[in-house]
Each structure stands twice: as C-alpha cells, then as structure tokens.
C-alpha cells in the first residue's frame, strides 16, 4: 500500500492532456447490441441454422467481443472489464428469467384450457383416464385438510420453541435446539415421509390416511415456523419487555400480552409462508396418503388425495385428457400457493415495524 502512495506524485507529473479519460458515448452499448444482433442473424442465415438459440449465442458472443475490443481501445482495460461484467450480469438475468417466465406462461395458458367451476367442484369418481371431465374437488379438500392438520400440529410447537429460544433459552439445550432446527430445515421431504412410514404405517400398522401425511408435513413445517418466529421475536425491543416486567407483570403474561402481539404480523407471515411451502410437497403425500379418485372428507381414515399428488398421478396416466387435467390442477395449486404468499407478504408489509433499510 505505502508503495502505491509513494509512486503517485511521479504519475501526476507526467500527463499533459485533459484530466478525465476518454469516454465512449452513452449509446455505445445499444449500438453494439444492434450490430451484434444483426451479425448473429446474418451469420445464422448464411450458415442455414434453424435454431434461434444459436443465433442468439452468436449475437451474444459478438456483443461481448466487440464491447471488449472497443472499450479497451478507447477507455482502457479496467473499463472494459467493467463492461464485460455488466453484460455478464445482464446475461445471467435474462438466462434466469426466460425459463421462469416460460414456466409461468405455460402453466397459466395450459391450465386455463380446462379450469372452470365444474373442475373445482367435482371429483374424479367414474371418470376414465382417456375422457375429459372430472375435477379436483377431492384433491383440493384433501390438501386443505392435510395442511390444516399439519399447521395445527406444527404451528404451536414451532411458536413455543421460538419463544423458548428467544425468551428462556440459554445454555446447552437452547444451543442443541438451535442446531437441530437448522438441521431439520434441510431434511428432504421424502425422508420425513419415510420416517412416518416406518413408525406410523410399518410399526403401528395404520393404513394410508390424510393424518399420516399431515404428520410428515408438520415435521417439514416446524423448523420453518421456528426460524421465522425467532427472527420476529428478536425484533421486539427489549424496552417493551422491561417496561412490562417493571410494572410487576409476570414473565409469561409479558410474553403473551406484550411480546407476541408486537410480533404477531411477522409471525403470521412466517406461518403462512410455511403453509405455502408444505402445500406443494408431493413426496410425503405420495408415500402416506396414497391418492384416490373419490371424495374422502375424513382425514383420519382411508386414502385421500391432494393437489400435488393429483398433478403427479394425472401426468403419470399420460393421456391427453389427463395431462390437461394435470395442468389445470397445477394452476389451481400455484394460485393457492401464490395467494397465500401474497397475503402473507401483505400482512408483513402492513404490520412491519419501520426500519432504516
């Protein structure tokens, strides 16, 4: 470092010209882009390539090389590297947006073909694989029941665990819980399914039911609830707790009446996001709930269906009518999850404590 500082005066003594470097005009990237697209199309046409992707690749390559060459010539290599980095970042963005947009577009356009009120209010009872018709009512019902039960199990445990970690926990137990919550977040959904399978189904000899699936979903949900609730409770200012305790309010009432209400917006958001996450889980449902064509409103007895499982089954059937149903069910599922997400984020924004960032 000190080296560079010493050399500076020498560098200052030399130049005679203007202090600022030569700059390319602002429209340069646009011009180069237009030129390279023309080159890509031209080369593509000349070589007779059919794939538009190849045209695009050539255009991108020409763009990068031309930008680098021009910038190095006029502005120097540091600026050239900067421009390369900028274009790479833009390329990453485009690369990622294309498949994701395509996913959204395909799901919506194909899903809308079959989706109507009839589809939402009828089951698959008596519908043959090859014929159109039928619906997702039984799957929708199953999903709502299973996710509901999972939430009833997981939310209180997750919430109380977070309260323990933030308000009571210090010492080895709290450290262990923190560590294993992190570990639990990484459990693949199919492993959670296998665990319930090995205990509930294989050891205790229960048949497939919505409740079994709900237990596996609850395992997946707990760590997410703990994490988000913990973050929210940590945001509650200590002054509030101290003020309450100083007034002689017992700790448990302080937590219930002061801490939790303050953080309730964030906690609700966290729970809803967790619900959205488990709604789309297929693997445990496949192992434990089994799937059926009929409406089974009782989650504690007999096979049920669920939206993601329905999508999988209909795709596996493979006939045109079934695949169309799979897309429609996928759209219902995505809408369900997205509405949950949007509402959750709305609550978060509405209740958010004002922060600097």
């Amino acid at each position, binding site marked *: 470092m000190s080296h560079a500082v010493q050399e500076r005066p020498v560098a200052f003594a030399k130049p005679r010209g203007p202090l600022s470097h030569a700059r390319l005009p602002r429209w340069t990237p646009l011009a180069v882009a237009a030129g390279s697209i023309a080159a890509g199309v031209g080369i593509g046409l000349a070589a007779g390539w059919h794939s538009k992707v190849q045209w695009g690749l050539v255009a991108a390559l020409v763009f990068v090389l031309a930008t680098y060459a021009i910038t190095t010539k006029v502005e120097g290599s540091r*600026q050239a590297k900067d421009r*390369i980095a*900028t274009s790479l970042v833009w390329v990453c963005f485009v690369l*990622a947006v294309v498949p994701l947009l395509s996913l959204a577009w395909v799901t919506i356009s194909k899903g809308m073909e079959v989706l109507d009120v009839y589809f939402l209010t009828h089951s698959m009872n008596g519908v043959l694989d090859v014929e159109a018709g039928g619906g997702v009512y039984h799957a929708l019902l199953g999903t709502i029941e299973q996710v509901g039960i999972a939430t009833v199990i997981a939310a209180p445990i997750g919430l109380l665990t977070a309260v*323990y970690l933030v308000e009571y926990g210090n010492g080895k137990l709290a450290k262990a819980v923190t560590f294993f919550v992190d570990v639990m977040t990484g459990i693949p*959904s*199919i492993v959670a399914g296998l665990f319930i399978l090995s205990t509930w189904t294989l050891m205790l000899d229960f048949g497939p039911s919505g409740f079994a699936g709900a237990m596996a979903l609850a395992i997946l949900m707990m760590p997410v609830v703990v994490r988000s609730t913990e973050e929210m409770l940590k945001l509650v200012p200590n002054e509030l707790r101290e003020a309450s305790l100083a007034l002689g309010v017992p700790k448990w009432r302080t937590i219930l009446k002061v801490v939790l209400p303050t953080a309730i917006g964030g906690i609700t958001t966290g729970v809803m996001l967790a619900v*959205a996450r488990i709604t789309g889980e297929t693997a445990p449902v496949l192992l434990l709930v089994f799937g059926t064509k009929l409406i089974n409103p009782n989650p504690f007895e007999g096979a049920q269906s669920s939206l993601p499982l329905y999508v999988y089954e209909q795709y596996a059937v493979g006939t045109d009518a079934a695949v169309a149903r799979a897309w429609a069910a996928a759209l219902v*599922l995505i809408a369900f999850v997205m509405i949950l997400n949007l509402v959750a984020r709305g609550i978060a924004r509405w209740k958010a404590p004002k922060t600097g960032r």
Partner: protein
Amino acid sequence: MVTTTPPAIKNRSRRAKSAARPGDRIFSGLSKGSGITLLVIMAAIAAFLTYRTVLAVSKDSTNFFTTFEWNPAGDPPVFGIAVLAFGTVVSSVIAMAIAVPVAIGIALFISHYAPRKLAKPLAYVVDLLAAVPSIIYGLWGAIFLVPYLDGLNQWLDQYLGWTYIFDKSADGVARNLFTVGILLAIMILPIITNVTREVFLQAPKMHEEAALALGATRWEVVRMAVLPFGRSGIISASMLGLGRALGETMAVAVVLSPSFVLSGHLLDPGGGTFAQNIAAKFNEANEFGRDALIASGLVLFVITLLVNGAARWIIARRKEYSGANA
C-alpha cells in the same frame, strides 16, 4: 466488576426462583417442552430409519454400497445404492455448476446493477418463484423442457462428444441426468438468489463508497467490496440450494426415465437418484422392499446432514477471519 457481583446475583436468582408464579412455571415448561419435542423428533427420525435400515441391509445378499441393482423382492434380495448415489451427486453437481454463478449474477443484478424501479418488483418476483411447488417444475420440465433440450443434447454430442461425458451412446429423448441437472438448477436458482441478494444488500455502504471515491469502476466495487463481504453468504446459500437439489423428489421422478445402469455418459437416458428411486419404487414394494427404500433414504438423510453441517462449519470459520463482519 465480575468479582463484586456474584453474591448479589446468586441471592437474587434464588429469591426469584422461590417467587416463581405457577403461570410462569407452566409457560416456561411448555416452551421448553416444545424445544425438547423437536429434539425428540430428530432423534426418532434417525433411530427409526436406522432400525429399518438394519433390518433391510442385514438380509441384503450383496454389498449395499457397491451394487448396481435394485431387486429387494428377489430371492435372495439384491439391492445397492451405487447408481443412486452416482446419479444424485452428478445431477446436483450439474445443478450447482449452473445455478451458483447465475444466481450470483442475478443477485448482483438486483442489488447493484438493475435500475431502481426494476429491482424491487424483481426481488419480489424471485421471492415468489422460490415458492413454486416442485411438482410444477417437474411437469413443466417433462412436457416443455425435455423436447427443448433434445436439440442441445444433439449439439453437445456432435461437438463435445469426444469428452466422453457428452457422448450420447444410446438413443432416446433427453430424459437423462443432464436434463435433471438443468431442471434442478432452475429450481434452486430462486432460493440461492434470495439469500445472496440479502447478503449483498448488507455489504457495508462505506466500503463501496470508499472504493468509488478512489475511482473504482462498478465491477471493481463489486469485486473488492461486495463479493468478499458476501462470501460466506454465498457459500451458505449454495449449500441450502445443494440440500434442496439432493433431496428433490418429484421433479426428478417426473423427468428422468430411470434405469439401474451407472453410466458416465450424461446424455444417455437412465440413472436415478435416491429420492426419485423411492418415489418410483414405492408402490410396487412389499414390506421388505419398503425397508430397502428406507435404507436408501437414510443414506440421503446422512448426506444432507453432512452438507448442512459443512455449510455451518464453513460459515462459522469464515466469520472468525473475515474483517468485513467486524
């Protein structure tokens, strides 16, 4: 300070304990109980999966780790995880190789490059995309992506076939490990992007402004102020993504046409992953077959535990030596 306070603290805590109200005791007991419940669940998962695995593997007539076959219903039962382990690792490695650089790029785009008006809605959309259920990625991948990648496969075979891994030796549509890797990359992209973006946004503004004041270009600011600060965040985000990719079930089950052949030719249809194999073989399995599948699930469980542990270890180690966190 330390020497004077201990007696006072001891006294007070003793008094506080004696005055503890029943409500307090019940509530703290409940919350502590929930924490313990979580630990018990984790322990139970490990214990039951191990128990079932022992039941299965003790009857396996070959080496569980090196066998290229899955036939637990046979007499004698023959099953091994070599193909599954290979497929899982390969597809995840492909996914990481694609997703991590692109995700860093998108995160930088949102945090430092995009026009302000575009950045916020974009971050929001990426957040939402992380919530898209995996089965929908699978459906899209199988119906839309696979035909699209056929062309890419032929191109890779034609020009990069000499590299062995891109040599397409068997005919068939692109339902192979390479496609699975690309699909997994698309799936974990939003997750990695979200976490890295958060970290990049937290990079100290002072460092960035100092670099700019010294005449650094935007890329130099990113390279010298943002990326070093975000390194541990990038690693933990990648590990998070890796965990997802390793355990992904439905998308792989829908896209891959499985086979129990271990092949280095990534473009050949076939192969399998732990999770995909469980989903695919479950319906036809009898009770012993289910135990065998549980055994493979345990291996997956252990692998994800190791990945998570490694991520935590790396983050902890980086934190100590990184000046940026000070």
